[in-house]
C-alpha cells in the first residue's frame, strides 16, 4: 500500500485551488463529545474549512501516537484529537491517560522537528457546534501560519511507526 501524493481535483477556481493546496488536517473525534460537536456544526449549517477529515473513535484514548506520527509521514499538516472533558469520559476516565500521552507526544514532535503546534488536543471544549467550529477554525489558522512540513522531519517519522503498512 503506497503513500498517496496530494493532487487537487482538476478544474477549480483559484480560491478553491488555494483551499485545495492549503493545510490538511485529520481529526480523531471521540464518538461522544467530539462527534456531537462536529454533528452539531453540520446540523446548524456552519460552514467549515474544507480540508479536514474526521476519523471517529470510541474514545480519544484509542488514538495512538503511532497513528498521529503516521499521519504526518503521509504529508498531513495537522492532527487533532478531540475528546470529552476530564471527568466526563464515558470510559471511566480513559481520557486522562490520553491527555498525558498526547502531552508527551507533543514534546516528541518538537524534538523531531515536526512541531507541537501541529497537534491539537481538545478535551471537552468542542462539544457544541460553535465550539467545534471555533476550534477547527483556530487550528487551521495556526496551520496556515506554519511552514510546510519539512521533508527531513517527515522522513524521520517513518522509522518511528510501529506497524508495517
Amino acid at each position, binding site marked *: 500500500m503506497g503513500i498517496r501524493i496530494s493532487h487537487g481535483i482538476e478544474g*477549480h477556481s483559484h480560491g478553491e485551488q488555494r483551499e485545495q493546496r492549503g493545510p490538511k488536517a485529520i481529526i480523531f473525534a471521540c464518538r461522544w463529545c467530539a462527534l456531537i460537536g462536529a*454533528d452539531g456544526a*453540520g*446540523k446548524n449549517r456552519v460552514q467549515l474549512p*474544507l480540508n479536514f477529515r474526521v476519523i471517529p473513535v*470510541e474514545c480519544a*484514548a484509542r488514538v495512538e501516537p503511532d497513528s498521529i506520527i503516521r499521519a504526518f509521514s503521509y504529508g498531513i499538516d495537522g492532527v487533532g484529537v478531540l475528546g470529552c472533558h476530564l471527568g466526563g469520559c464515558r470510559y471511566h476516565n480513559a481520557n486522562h491517560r*490520553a491527555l498525558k*500521552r498526547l502531552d508527551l507526544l507533543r514534546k516528541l514532535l518538537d524534538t523531531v522537528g515536526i512541531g507541537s503546534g501541529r497537534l491539537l488536543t481538545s478535551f471537552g471544549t468542542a462539544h457544541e457546534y460553535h465550539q467545534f467550529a471555533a476550534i477547527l477554525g483556530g487550528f487551521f489558522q495556526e496551520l496556515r501560519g506554519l511552514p510546510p512540513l519539512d521533508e527531513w522531519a517527515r522522513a524521520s517519522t517513518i522509522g518511528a511507526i510501529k506497524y508495517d503498512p
Partner: protein
Amino acid sequence: MDDKRTAICVLCRCYGEISDVIDLDSLKNMLTDHPLVSSAEIRDCLCLEADLEGLSETIRQSGANKVLIAACSPLARGDPILRGLKQRGIHPADLELVDIREGCAWIHKDNPQGATGKAWDLINMGLASLVRKERSEDTTTLVRHEVLVLGAGPAGLAAAASLGQLGVKVHLVERSKRPGGMLNLISRVAPDETSPQEKLAPYLKAVDENTNITYYPSTHIDSAEGTVGNFAVKVQDGDGVHTIHAGAVIVSTGAQALLPQGLYRYGKLKGVLSAIELERHLKAGPVQAQRIVFIQCVAARDQARPYCSAICCPVSLKNAMALRKEHPESEVFILHRDIICPGSTLEHYYRKTMAKGVKFIRFEEQNPPVIEGDDHVSTVRVYDTATGTMRELHADMVVLSTPLAAHKDTHGLARMLGLTQDHLGFLEVHPLMHPVETTVPGIFICGSARWPVLADRAITQGEAAAMKAFCLVSGQEIAALGLSQFKGEKFAIARVDQEACTGCGNCVHICPYEACTLGLVDGASKSTVDPMRCTGCGTCVAVCPNGSIQLPEQDAVVIGEMLAQSFS
C-alpha cells in the same frame, strides 16, 4: 487482501440535502471502477422504511458481503438505518456508515466541487475500514439465577427480600451474628421515629420464611473470582470455607460510626458522649439528663474529612425529640454549622423539632464550641453567630455527632471484588443515572458502603440494586457485546494475539475496567481480556508496544489505511 471482499456502495440523496451539493453521479461512476467495490447505486432517502426494505433486498441479491452507506450522520438517521439493516440480517461489522451530510454537504455548501472531492475521500476511508474490519467474538455466558448479597443491614435485607420474592436464589452473607447492621445500634430510626425492629420486620420475615433466601450469619468473605453471570466467592464461617456461586453481587456492607477521639474532651470528661453512645443509652431506658447539647459536624466537613455525612442532622433531631418527649422540662440545644434536611419530609421534621422547643445555635467552623467542666461536663461556650454573642449553655450531657466513615475493611473487600474506592474510602459507583452500578458488570453497591444514607434511603437503594441485579440474572445468558456501559451495545471487545503478546502488562495496568489479566499460556506470560468487562474503549491498544492487542472493528492497520486514503 482477500479478493472476495467486495462491497456494495449505497449513496443517499437525502432528497437533495446531499445531492444538491455533492455530485453523487460522478462518485457512483468512480466507485464502479473501484477495486473494492462490486456495485454502487444512489437512493433517494434511505431512512424511510420502503427504501430500507428495498435496500436489504438489493444487498441480499447482489451477493456482496460488505455494505458501505454514504448518507447522513449516525446521530441523525445513520443509527436507525444501521439498526434497521441489522433487523434484516445485515451485521454491523459488515456495514460502514459514512457521514457525507453533516460531515460534508451541510458544512461545505458553497464549494460543491470541494465537497465532492471530500466525499470521495471519506468514502475511500470508509471502504478502507469496511474491508479490513473484523467482528469481535461475541461470547455469551450462562447466568446463574442467584445473587450474593454482602451485608444484612437495611440495604442488604431489602435487596435480599425483594430478590427472594422475585424467585431468585439469594445468598445473604452477614459478618456479625445478627442481621440489621447499624440499625442494631440505634434506638429509633430517623426521621419517622419507628423502631429498628418495626422498620426491618418485613425484610427479616421474608429472609426467614422465603426458601429462596439462604442466610449466612457470622460469615465473612475470603476471596472472589469469576465475572458477571458466574461469580465464585469463597466464604468462611465457623464450619469452614465454602464457595458461593452467583450471577450478580450486591455489596451492602455499610459503614462505621467514627468516634470523636481527642475532640471536645471526649473520653476525658464525663458526660461527653458520641451520638452512637447516646443511642445505646436511649435504648436502655430514660436518659437522666436535663440539659443536653448536641454538637454537629464533629470531625466532619473539615480538612481531614471533607464531606457531609448526611445522616447526623436528622439523627440529632430525632434524638432531641426523644429527649424532649421523655423530659418536657429539659433544655435541648443543637449547635450546628448548617442543618442538613433537604426535601419535604426532612424539612418538615426540622420545623416540627423547632416547634417542640429544641433550640438551634449556629457556629462557624473556625470558632467551634468549647466544653467546660472539671470532672463532669458543666458548660458549653459557643459563639452564636445569629446574635453575635458568646453563649454559655449549662449542660449535663454533650452529644458529639460524628460522621459515618468507610469501614476499615472496605479496602480488602474492594480488592477482592475488583472495585475501586474513592479518596474517602467509600466504594466508587457511577454518578447520576446509574447510582448503584459500578465499573464491574454484575456488582452493585447500596447503602452506606456507597455513601452515608438514612435507613429509608438505604432500603430504596437496596431495592434499586435488587432491580438491576434481577434484570441481569433473569435471562438465561448474557452476551458480552450486549453488556455495555449504558449504550446498549459495545463497539468492540479487545482481542490479544497470544503469539505476539510479550506479557509486558501495559494493558493490564491501563485498562479502566481491569479487563486484562496476565496469565501463563504454555509457560509464557500473556494477557487475556475478560470480554464481559471490556468496553471497547481502545485504551489498551494505544499503549501496547507491539500492537498485539487490538479492537477487531478498528485495528491500527485500519486507521493507517484510512489515513492513507484521506486526501487523494
